[in-house]
């Protein structure tokens, strides 16, 4: 059974149909990529899945459960984590603090217990930190652990975004343009991490990406969308060769 099922998803902003009848399934353990020209609605699909937007129509099913009506803050607890295209880290906190906030959906203490810092709160804190250290190890962030986000270079921040998403122990991770703004080496590292996430952590990855070399390298399946509508689905090579996709990116012989 698919881990994520998106069926006939649609949303309009004002008069613009940003997403128009998009359907796809993501199988557990695969890396599934959404590609398409800018403004195609890819990030909007992400925002719909992570429930930051309300769909006008359609249904989203995750792990057998219909989540179309769930509030955004429930999504992390269900096992979906995401990164943001324009990094949305907590600038005034350290990397460690950011990752610890990532553990919020796995919280097991109430505020009045925390007020008195009961022993169970201390045990809980230690457990969270243990978990977070594993993520830090996985992504080689140990050197930045106590540094404030505000002073970190862009490439590191992108990695911290992913680390924070991983801290919540998700089943599905949504990566929104993980390679944008990265150098060739950093993109190479990103490819390795995505592969590691899939193989070592057993995660399912849903990704939006423009860098076709990265897409070809890590993706199992690719869905191309343009103007909110699906164009073609298949392997990276198949989608890249599809005439409708080429037309959406480059135009036809008449318009090229």
């Amino acid at each position, binding site marked *: 059974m698919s881990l994520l099922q998106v069926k006939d998803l649609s949303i309009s902003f004002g008069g613009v149909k940003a997403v128009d009848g998009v359907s796809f399934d993501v199988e557990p353990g695969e890396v599934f990529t959404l590609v398409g020209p800018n403004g195609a609605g890819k990030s909007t699909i992400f925002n719909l899945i*992570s429930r*930051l937007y309300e769909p006008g129509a359609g249904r989203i099913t995750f792990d057998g459960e219909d989540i179309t009506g769930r*509030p*955004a*803050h*429930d*999504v*992390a*607890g269900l096992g979906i*984590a*995401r990164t*943001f295209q324009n990094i*949305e*880290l*907590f*600038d*005034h*906190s350290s990397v*460690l*603090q950011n990752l*610890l*906030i*990532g*553990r*919020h*959906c796995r*919280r097991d*203490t109430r*505020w009045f217990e*925390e*007020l*008195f*810092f009961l022993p169970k*709160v*201390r045990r*809980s*804190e*230690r457990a969270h*930190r*243990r978990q977070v250290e594993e993520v830090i190890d996985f992504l080689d962030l140990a050197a930045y652990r106590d540094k404030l986000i505000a002073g970190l270079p862009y490439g590191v921040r992108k990695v911290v975004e992913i680390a*924070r998403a991983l801290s*919540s122990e998700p089943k599905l991770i949504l990566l929104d343009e993980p390679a944008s703004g990265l150098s060739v080496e950093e993109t190479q590292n990103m490819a390795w991490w995505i592969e590691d996430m899939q193989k070592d952590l057993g995660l399912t990855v849903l990704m939006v990406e423009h860098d076709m070399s990265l897409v070809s390298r890590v993706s199992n399946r690719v869905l191309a969308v343009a103007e909110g509508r699906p164009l073609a689905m298949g392997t990276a090579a198949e989608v890249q060769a599809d005439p409708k996709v080429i037309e959406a990116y480059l135009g036809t012989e008449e318009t090229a």
Partner: protein
Amino acid sequence: MSNRFKSRYDDDINLFEGRWHLAQYALLIALLLAAPWLLGVYYLGELTAVLIWSLAGLGLMLISGHTGQVSLGHAAFMAIGAFTNLALMMRGWHFIPALLASAVSSGVIGAIISRPILRMSGIYLAIATLALSIIIEDVSIMAESITGGVAGLFAPPIDLFGLTIDRYSSPRAFYYLCLAVLVIVTLGYLNLLRSASGRSFLAVRDSEVSARALGVNVARAKTLSFALSCAMTGLAGALYAHLAQAVNYESFLVLISITLLLQVVIGGLGSVHGAFFGALVVVLLPQSIAMLRDFLNNTAGISIAAYPGMDTALFALLILLMVIYEPRGLYGVWFKVRTWLQLFPLYRKGMFRRTRTYLKTERQR
């Protein structure tokens, strides 16, 4: 910026960073406990005022400094706490239950109000809380049966464990009472900050969107923060009522709300220390100006006219300079000084240079 080597998770989790850190604060507590013997009655009273305003400032710091929701209306909750406490004590309640009740009433009212109000943000939230402060001013007059109307209420003496504590007849005992309340509340605050609740507040402050995506129920976090914040400020209001011995609507004017916000800003928004630094400035500034004036008069024969409102103007000038040159407030200054001392002689001037930022519109959130 000290070079600590941490070897256990507890090194991060604990309140104190090590024996030296603990010793510093132990010394501070010892000095505070010894204060009644070190200071005369007048200055002990001033110190008590500092403690009470620190408590009020802590309340505001939680919601504005750590959760990012600006409030220009916190005097309203001081009023609620003060009137609840006095009204209950006048009806025969003992002090401690009345004190707890004032915290609870401020907190609950804060929680109720927070739902509609905290849906707003930025400048709308500021003006809404400002309006709240003005409305409560009026309610303080209207609700005569509770608040004594225009005339207000007098503070009855406190009966505690057989002692009768009153600000004038037993200043020492009153001082210790305020100190105890402040220390307990501060510990609770620090505990919240180092656990999931505190982190959720910081998350709401820095990015609501990603907080939501990480599982933080933003509305509930804001409500919890506001409720606790109002409870703390309500507690401060109750103690203030006993400090001032009488309160009415004029004790909690809009100007107090504004001054409270300026106080936490000058202290350092976003730091616990800031509440204390700010209170020190607000309480001791008029005193310092008077002393400075006397000093100049006696030594150099310079006589500066005593214009009304001079201390407020000087306070405003300090705020101006602080906002322009050190937005992190007195805490920022203290932090830099401490870093300089710790790194001596390797401190570099460009260490805290701020990167140039451009204003992005706040109309898109």
